[in-house]
């Protein structure tokens, strides 16, 4: 992937790339620290259809969503040979009982049979998290298991 970085004198920096569908997408990082998501219009890649200001939390959440999707796709690809095994993502909401708790406390594998194979946090992947890994609000958990096992795991993370 070829990401272009361009200086915007007096303002900051623009980082963007051209998608396969012919639209330019990227971010503008301001000198003062704000981030803006930019998307070009479909008919003129030079112009912007949207410039969306993102807070640090929002940018991290968006990164998780996109990165998580990619990880989930790779995992599904890897598990295609095994029938019945599915990959799913769970997010830790503000009212999850395991927020700020070590993951081991939820005993997900024991209770549902599903495994948490990665945690996406602020755009970073924490692979194979141990039982000591503390779950935080906004985390995206990538889980592998059977359909029913994942349903159970979702219930555990939501309601305890």
């Amino acid at each position, binding site marked *: 992937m070829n990401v272009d970085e*361009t*200086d*915007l*004198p*007096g*303002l900051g920096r*623009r980082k*963007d790339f051209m998608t396969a569908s012919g639209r*330019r997408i*990227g971010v*503008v990082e301001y*000198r*003062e620290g704000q981030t*803006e998501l*930019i998307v*070009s219009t479909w008919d*003129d*890649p*030079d*112009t*912007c259809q949207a*410039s969306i200001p993102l807070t640090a939390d929002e940018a991290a959440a968006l990164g998780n969503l996109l990165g998580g999707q990619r990880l989930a796709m790779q995992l599904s690809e890897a598990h295609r040979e095994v029938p019945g095994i599915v990959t799913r993502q769970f997010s830790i909401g503000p009212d999850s009982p395991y927020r700020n708790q070590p993951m081991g406390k939820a005993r997900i594998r024991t209770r549902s049979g599903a495994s948490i194979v990665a945690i996406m946090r602020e755009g970073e992947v924490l692979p194979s998290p141990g039982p000591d890994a503390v779950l935080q609000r906004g985390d995206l958990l990538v889980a592998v298991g059977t359909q029913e096992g994942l349903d159970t795991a979702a219930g555990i993370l939501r309601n305890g």
Partner: protein
Amino acid sequence: MDPLALTLIELGAVVFCLGLLARLAGRIGMSPIPLYLLGGLFFGAGGIVKLEGMHEFAHLSSEIGVILLLLMLGLEYTAAELVTGLRRSWQAGVLDLVLNFLPGALLAVVLGWGIVGAMVMGGVTYISSSGIAAKVITDLGRIGNRETPVVLSILVFEDLAMAIYLPILTATLAGVSFIVGLQTVGISLAVVTVVLLVALRHGHHVSKAVHSENSEVFLLNLLGAALLVAGLASALQVSAAVGAFMLGIAISGATAHSATRILEPLRDLFAAIFFVVFGLNTDPSTIPPVLGWALLLAFVTAVTKMITGFWAAKQAGIGRAGRFRAGAALIARGEFSIVIAGLAVASGVVPQELAAMATAYVLIMAVTGPLAARFVEPVVAMLRRPAKPPAVRTADGV
């Protein structure tokens, strides 16, 4: 009436009116500069009320306004940005200089204002308003656009050109001989180079000298340093404005950003007074005779800026619509054109009509610039559509 009371009343009324004008400008989404100038024209020389009481304070304030405007211009870009900007956009920068300096200079010659008048008017028509351009680009959501770096680097080039132009202008206005003039140019080139080198290598030392976590200390340090440097520059026959500008370039990095934030309100106040004083000193009855020429000049230099932006964007591989947007973003002239005209008028060696011409010209350009930037896109799209109807495109199999 007690002179102090009169001064306070006049000053208060003027600043209050400026506030109303700024609010009006914000409401209709335009730059307040033309309104400040108009407000100044209504009063003062040839206007309704003379406003004698605030004369002394207003005069000093407008000098400080110029110093702050130039200091902030220097702060706007880091030395590294200036150097890369120069390297990347010097061709567009030179084209910009030639295309936009000549119309003003030629008109001055035609009107018989001599070489000095040509120097001044060339500068007035050359320099785009980086303030208006930046605001237009932000307001129209074009920061992420691909032509925006092109526009910004032309503004960076103009910034540097000012550093060399202003000392030459000051020397010309002081009426020095050709040899002395050449020396001034040499000295100013050397000073710009040294300041850039110092800012690149040792910018943090300069920044450290004025920086403080305490915003009060920081403000006093900054303002003190700016006035000191400006005063010293003025004593050395280099313009005060240039000194402040160089200080702005030398301050870099995080210090420069916080300096911009802290100085902004002061700059707004003193710059507003500067514009209004410029208007006050201009007799409105001198404007109608030059209005025709000002309109012609405005039209020509709008086209030349358009060509500059169009060409620069084309060089950068940007599509048709983007090229027009780049050109239109550069059209606005504003604060620095008035700064240049103000320096000239203060020296007293240019005719009064020059002030009238500069006022009329900036009034036109500060209003039409943002409008052009806003409407260039729909207009270009409209003009393009009849040429390429969709039916033909389908028939071509495009």
